[in-house]
């Protein structure tokens, strides 16, 4: 008898995509949005002004990028946190799974809704 096929590929693919994206753009995004622009060093504060960010978020490419970053970062983190729980001996099972992946799904929905509300 064959063992049961796992549904892990779905979550693993999202985890992997998020991990790769975070490795590529994570550090620079944190640096820009959280450090150099707020401080106004090497990046004028106007770079993240309302009009400028709105224009970016209204463009389809900007929308896609923002959705990918927020959603995939969340899926990446959710998958890792779920496995860390197992690693440290918390075999919370279905509950932990729902909480981890459910949060990522919720974040994805909110991000998509916000991006739609922003308009084109």
């Amino acid at each position, binding site marked *: 008898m064959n063992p049961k096929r796992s549904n892990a590929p779905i979550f693993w693919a999202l985890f992997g995509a998020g991990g790769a994206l975070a490795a590529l*753009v994570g550090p620079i995004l944190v640096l820009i949005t959280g450090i150099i622009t707020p401080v106004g060093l090497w990046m004028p504060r106007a770079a993240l002004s309302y009009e400028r960010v709105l224009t970016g978020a209204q463009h389809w490419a900007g929308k896609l990028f923002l959705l990918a970053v927020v959603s995939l970062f969340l899926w990446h983190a959710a998958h890792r946190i779920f496995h860390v729980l197992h690693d440290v001996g918390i075999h919370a099972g279905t509950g932990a799974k729902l909480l981890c992946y459910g949060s990522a799904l919720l974040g994805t929905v909110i991000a998509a809704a916000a991006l739609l509300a922003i308009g084109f």
Partner: protein
Amino acid sequence: MAGWWRRNPFFVRYMLRELTAPFVAIYAVILLVGLVRLAQGEAAYDAWFAALTHPASIAIHWLLLVALIYHSVTLWQVMPKTMPPLKVAGHTLPELGVTALGLLATLTVSVVVYALVRWL
């Protein structure tokens, strides 16, 4: 198995790698809040950006930056374990070579993202 990851420096480094995940999630949530505020209009967005200029926020983002850089480095470190050997001119690229290529990609993308945010 309780506390297994404390028994070997190799496992400690693995656990540090896995524990970058909550930081990735925190950053995604910060951006998600920014998206929602952006959708709510100029006043809401400006309040979000003003919060980012608070010294506590800057301090948190330094922490996030360290975590994201560690995530990036460790992701490229394990990347060669996830793929068939990379052949360059008939020779197998050593694992360190793959890691170096990945870090180079992160660096390149970082420069591109910086340039886009600054000058586009």
